[in-house]
């Protein structure tokens, strides 16, 4: 049998010269080892692109844990089409160049069925063209608007997490109607920050509000006090969305700047993902509001599905690791990995996926999806998938810091997150 496998090399353009390839030490290098055709009992191989090093490592670690947990749940329930799921993780270093290399590695070396993962949008944008060329379905969990904007290709989908544009525009009614009409935005001078700036400005104006100042902070900044005087005095609400390790400084310095007389503050939890709210200096946030993709603290109305998901990933009621209460999760985003894997499972089962030749069928099956009800597969909440834009839409949560916990204050409807289609990927050929 072993011998048979070794002879079973796929015909390629270099068929004539395969003999040469067998020569010498070359065969000991990875990638030279002959591989076997997918068999019915062989695992489904999912290439998992993960931020293990670089600036995204804090997210990557939890994406990793969530993915592992989801794969275990799927496998315990019999896998996909009766085949177990195998997760092949590769570090992308939070670097677009490496990201693309990793996609190539999944496709041509690991012979993965599909690729999946990663948060930082520049990595997704660096990787997606290769995924398209290699005809490798690439399921991203990055919340970037790049998928639905039409920038990518038919092989790239985002069925597990809503995008920034949705999130931001869904926040505007709450902010304008409950916190105040005059908003000052503080955001990183990243493309991601600019998405916030553009989509929120438009949405808040539609609500009769006004953005009175837009303060773009350079990505290399480590201290912020000097920028706060740019906040106009008549500001009702500060809208902040910062990322990176300097956010703690940002919040602390904001506290020192305003002292006891602060405006209302609304922030994206991206700032404080993986950060303990009990951290010294964050008391200032008491009473302020946050967008959360998924509430970190188990809420009074916690669904049984969230309970199950939480336990499976190993997260306690406070959103921290069960084994270490100080190890806080990236709860607002990481559910996307869980849900995406379940969408992949559903898509593969619907399309009767057998192997790489069925990749187009898999994508068509996912494109055909619409309603995704709240369930064990979708513990964050019900969702609507738009097959044309390859983007999912779902509920958003607004929580308020009360006694050092994030308490649910408002849940937006799915409709709040919808916007007109900007692309129809289904019209592209495979």
């Amino acid at each position, binding site marked *: 049998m072993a011998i048979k496998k070794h002879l079973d090399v796929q015909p*390629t*353009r*270099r068929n*004539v*010269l395969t003999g*040469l*390839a067998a020569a010498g030490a070359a065969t000991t*290098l*990875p*990638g*030279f080892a002959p591989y076997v055709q997918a068999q019915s009992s062989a695992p489904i191989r999912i290439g998992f692109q993960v931020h*293990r*090093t670089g600036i995204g490592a804090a997210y990557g670690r939890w994406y990793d844990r969530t993915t592992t947990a989801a794969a275990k749940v799927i496998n315990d329930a019999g896998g996909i089409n009766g085949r177990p799921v195998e997760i092949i993780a*590769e*570090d992308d270093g939070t*670097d*677009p*160049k*490496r990201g*693309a*290399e990793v996609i*190539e*590695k999944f*496709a*041509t*070396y690991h012979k993965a069925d599909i690729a999946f993962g990663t948060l930082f*949008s*520049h990595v997704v*944008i*660096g990787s*997606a*063209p*290769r995924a*398209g*060329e290699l005809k490798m379905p690439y399921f991203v969990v990055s919340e*970037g608007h*790049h998928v639905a904007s039409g*920038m*990518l*290709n038919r092989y790239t989908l985002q069925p597990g997490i809503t995008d920034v544009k949705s999130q931001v525009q869904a926040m505007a009614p709450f902010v304008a109607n409950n916190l105040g009409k005059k908003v000052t935005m503080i955001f990183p*001078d*990243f*493309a*991601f920050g*600019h998405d916030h700036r553009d989509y929120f400005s438009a949405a808040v104006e539609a609500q009769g509000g006004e953005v009175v100042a837009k303060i773009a902070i*350079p*990505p290399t900044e480590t201290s912020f006090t000097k920028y706060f005087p740019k906040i106009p005095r008549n500001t009702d609400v500060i809208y902040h969305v910062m990322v990176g390790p300097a956010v703690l400084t940002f919040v602390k310095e904001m506290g020192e700047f305003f002292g006891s007389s602060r405006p209302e503050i609304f922030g994206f939890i991206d700032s404080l993902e993986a950060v303990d709210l009990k951290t010294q200096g964050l008391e200032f946030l008491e009473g302020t509001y946050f967008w959360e993709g998924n509430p970190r603290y188990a809420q009074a109305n916690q669904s049984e599905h969230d309970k199950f998901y939480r336990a499976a990933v190993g997260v306690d009621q406070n959103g921290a690791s069960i084994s270490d209460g100080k190890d806080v999760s990236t709860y607002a985003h990481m559910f996307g990995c869980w849900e995406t894997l379940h969408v992949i499972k559903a898509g593969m089962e619907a399309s009767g996926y057998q192997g790489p030749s069925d990749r187009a069928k898999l994508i068509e099956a996912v494109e055909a999806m619409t309603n995704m009800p709240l369930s064990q597969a979708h513990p964050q909440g019900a969702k609507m998938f738009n097959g044309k834009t390859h983007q999912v839409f779902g509920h958003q949560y607004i929580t308020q810091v009360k006694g050092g916990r994030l308490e649910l204050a408002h849940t937006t409807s799915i409709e709040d997150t919808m916007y007109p289609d900007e692309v129809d990927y289904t019209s592209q050929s495979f």
Partner: protein
Amino acid sequence: MSLHLALIALLFALHFILPDYHHGNLARVMVLAVYAMAYNVMFGYTGLLSLGHAMFFCAGMYGMGLSMRLYEISAGPAFLIGLSVSVIFSLLIGLLALRTIGVAFMIVTLMFSQAIFLTILYFNPITRGDEGFVIPQAARQIAGIDLSDSGNRYFAALILFSICLLAVLKLVRAPTGRVLIAIRENEERAKMLGYDIWAHKLGAVVMSGTMAGAAGAAYGLLFGTVGASFAEVPFSILPLLYVLLGGPGTVIGPFVGTLFMFYLRDLSSALTDAHMLVAGVVLILLTIYARRGIMGLIREKWLKWLP
């Protein structure tokens, strides 16, 4: 000469032999090796240590990419625009930065490169900042040849690599190349032999910058993305590492260094999550035991004639 032609022939032959994965890697390595060779012209041969080479790479990459994104120019002309932008840009930087020498030159190039990086972020509506943008697969064609096809990509990379390799070889064999080496070895003496140091250095910067720009434009065209991460400091350090590891002042050293670093990262990340640890230890050991880089070691021990 024969060695270099043999390398090109080997790379050509490898196209038919290599499994897909290594075939793809090699295409990438060849483009990055062009970037490293460009760096070698300035650093290895002329002795100008730049810490901002990413800006030249990006001049080509964004010159090409933005002309396609904003003006829908087709790939071939866009590549030439990228190249022209690199020529003008490296001339400009050369004129300014060459007023300094040594560590000041390092900082000046570093600062200009940082300014370029920040400018890319600043003009986000045009450049899409850190995220960058995609060059659509359909647009990546020159004379009807689809550059996103793996075979075509490999040959495009090989052609660019061969042109640059032979150009560098010709340069270092030519009297001009000898002068560059003389400048590296002893600038004052070279001047007192009647050489116009300034003009030669400027020439080296422009050649290096243009070649780096060609690598950047090619990278964008062959792999379909343009992004600000190619303007960040670590991307400027990369060719320095490639060149120092491969062997500064050797023609194929940069290629060897690039190949080595690529597989060091790739193989070690297969073994462990801590691939940076492995890379770090290997770098330290190599500097201790191969003081002139891999090709330098080979030249010292066996092939004294290696250019």
